[in-house]
């Protein structure tokens, strides 16, 4: 049963990573990166590293995502390349 959850988490990890790299909208990219971080935290917890997963969830999904949004707020939302 545990391996089934882990396979779902790995698929979600791959999906959010590819989405964060390929999307043109920077705000959507930052949200996808935050979702990637939270999935990574769930994977850490499923491997038994509770402390690492907790730190990853708090810092990655809570603080760094907000910093990404603040940086986008100060610049522009679309890419120009």
């Amino acid at each position: 049963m545990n391996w089934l959850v882990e396979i779902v988490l790995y698929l979600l990890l791959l999906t959010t990573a590819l989405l964060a790299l390929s999307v043109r909208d920077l705000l959507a990219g930052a949200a996808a990166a935050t979702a990637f971080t939270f999935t990574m935290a769930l994977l850490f917890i499923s491997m038994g590293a509770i402390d690492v997963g907790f730190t990853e969830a708090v810092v990655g999904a809570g603080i760094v995502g907000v910093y990404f949004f603040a940086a986008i707020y100060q610049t522009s939302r679309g890419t120009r390349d």
Partner: protein
Amino acid sequence: MTHKSVSIIILVASRALARVIQLFGIYVIIHGHYSPGGGFQGGALLAAGVILMRMAYGREASQSEVSTGAAIPLASIGALLFAGTGLITLAFGGHYMDYGAVPVPGIEEPIVRYYGILLVEFGIGLAVMTVLVAIFDDMLSVPPEERVEGGAPDESSDPVPVERRNPMTR
């Protein structure tokens, strides 16, 4: 982000949620001995609560949580609390952060270690919370409508008002 939100849903929900996040942060700091977590995680949770109020209510309305000018001095106090607790144990002849070396009359040695670790966790939590809030304040120190496109303002150009736009729209 820099001004008060116009949505009543965001205002009420963030006001309710920020207190729960901060209460959980205090729980994580105090229970750092026994359970996962500690000063860093609890401080980051406290900072997340403050930043949520900053984002919903704007900077001026949320100064009573952690004011912008007091962030860096509070971080210095937290770092001093962290390092100073370790240095006090050196003064009593122990190793760095060997809390059991401090002779407190009437208290057993394990209890002294308990309170020493708790003091260090409080110092880490205070430093991490205020530094994260200070980084957020510095990133949003210039509101987008006062920003001049294309770098520094030019003195010779005529004072055309900067086009007001919402940066979260394309």
